């Protein structure tokens, strides 16, 4: 059974098609990444999945419940961190955690325990007595994400949770989420930052202009779109005969730089590299240094989104 089963979801605002015929399926225990540029339709999708807005079209099943017919039952079992900040301005951080737990019907002793745990897990000790309205944007974001863990849930939605966080806090949050996934939580995670999706997600959907362009694992995406690798080899000494030596190798483009260094661009980099290394060794060429420059998801992402653009 899938945790999220969405089929042909659409949402229009007047003539704007914010989300246009999206179908997706998220398995239990998975981190599902929803990746796309600003205005792609990520937040609109998350608002439909979290029952905040009804879809204009399509069917939606969350945790085995028909989310359009029975939104309240879904709400009991999900956690939601929207893109927009949410906080009780006049309450202190710890008090707002306690009240949030109370709203979720968490017993008082359990609330106390969780508040302490979250304050320590999210490094909030120095601001625990501060009022929420006096926090910086980044602190507020951390508090908002932490607060969601005051209650139990089977499925957590996070809409660009790391915006406003510094790199250290960002990494900490991602690691915290990974730990939670190990205990069985399923996460739906939107971001416009690729390195995050790559680090955290088991599967990534790339969305653009309200449509899902592609869905795959981070590695498969790299293989499908980004197996073109660049490999640099530096030699110990100058070998003017190198060009002749390597001329028989196909499926690649080799640049020779002054006889001491070569750069290989290839779609089958692993195979090509093996051949190159064999040839060099047969001719007793000594290698000083070898480095591979992997394609990152950033390039894939730009490529996919660009190819999808209507004016292309």
């Amino acid at each position, binding site marked *: 059974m899938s945790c999220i089963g969405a089929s042909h979801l659409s949402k229009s605002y007047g003539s704007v098609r914010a989300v246009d015929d999206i179908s997706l399926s998220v398995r239990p225990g998975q981190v599902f990444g929803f990746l796309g540029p600003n205005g792609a339709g990520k937040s609109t999708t998350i608002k439909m999945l979290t029952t905040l807005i009804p879809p204009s079209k399509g069917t939606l099943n969350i945790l085995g419940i028909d989310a359009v017919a029975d939104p309240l039952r879904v709400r009991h079992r999900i956690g939601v961190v929207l893109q927009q900040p949410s906080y*009780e301005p006049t309450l202190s951080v710890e008090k707002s955690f306690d009240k949030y737990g*109370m709203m979720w019907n968490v017993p008082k002793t359990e609330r106390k325990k969780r508040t302490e745990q979250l304050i320590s897990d999210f490094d909030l000790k120095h601001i625990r007595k501060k009022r929420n309205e006096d926090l910086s944007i980044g602190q507020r974001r951390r508090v908002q994400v932490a607060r969601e863990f005051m209650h139990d849930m089977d499925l957590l939605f996070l809409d660009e949770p790391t915006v406003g966080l510094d790199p250290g806090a960002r990494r900490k949050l991602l690691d915290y989420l990974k730990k939670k996934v190990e205990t069985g939580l399923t996460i739906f995670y939107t971001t416009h930052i690729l390195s995050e999706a790559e680090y955290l997600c088991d599967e990534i959907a790339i969305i653009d202009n309200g449509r899902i362009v592609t869905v795959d694992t981070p590695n498969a995406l790299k293989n499908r779109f980004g197996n073109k690798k660049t490999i640099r080899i530096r030699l110990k000494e100058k070998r003017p005969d190198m060009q002749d030596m390597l001329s028989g190798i196909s499926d690649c483009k080799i640049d020779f730089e002054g006889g001491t260094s070569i750069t290989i661009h290839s779609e089958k980099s692993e195979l090509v590299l093996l051949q190159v290394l064999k040839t060099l060794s047969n001719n007793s060429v000594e290698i000083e240094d070898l480095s591979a420059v992997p394609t990152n998801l950033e390039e894939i992402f730009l490529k996919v989104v660009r190819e999808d653009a209507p004016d292309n």
Partner: protein
Amino acid sequence: MHPIIRLVNRNITISLNPGFLIWQIIFPLIYIFVAGFAYAPLINSVPLGARDLDYPAYLASGMIGFNIMNSTLVSGIIIWNDRRHGMFEQIMSGPFTRSHYILSNICTIGVIGLASATLIALVGYPVFFESVEFSLVTVPIIIFGAITGSILFGSLASIISTRLRSSEGFNVIINTVFLFFAFVSTAFYPAEGAPEPLRTAFYLNPLTYLVDVIRAGIFGGITEFVILEMLVLAGLAATLFVIASKLLTRLDF
């Protein structure tokens, strides 16, 4: 615990801050004791039905209605702040429905309105006890006033807060509307003494009806007119409540 009770608990927690308590307690006390006694030498007595009241007693009883109205501003402010600070969406994605949210707001203003009326009645009691005519209906009438008044003004504040987007607009409109209600009413002075256009204006104002009803409960004199006023109050409260609920139901994210 029922979801509505949990939301009321939360609403009361976020509303009870020092600013609100000053607004709720200090402000009416200043009116009753400073204005009431400062004006007393100038205003010997105020006619109420067939009898005359001294001004401090008249004013203190008026302050009960005034305070009910003031306290229900809270409901508008809660909705306004919830939208501005993302808590409306947060709550609606949690284990609650819109009806829970709306009903919890009504209960919150009911509780705060009733507490406020009780507080002013207790504090004002020494001022008007000489004129009080206790009867079986005194307490029920004050409760009726507190509840219909809370719903009426609470719904109105909610309507304003769902219609506006900017903070400046919200503050200006809420303050203007409530200033008009406060001073173009019989809370501070009787309609009988006022010149004509003002006198009619008094009766275009629901606070006048609320204050009249509460005075009738405290000092006796439930006439046919007062019963009519009660009906107007109840009808208006029901209508505004339906409109506010509709608007809240349609509020999008």
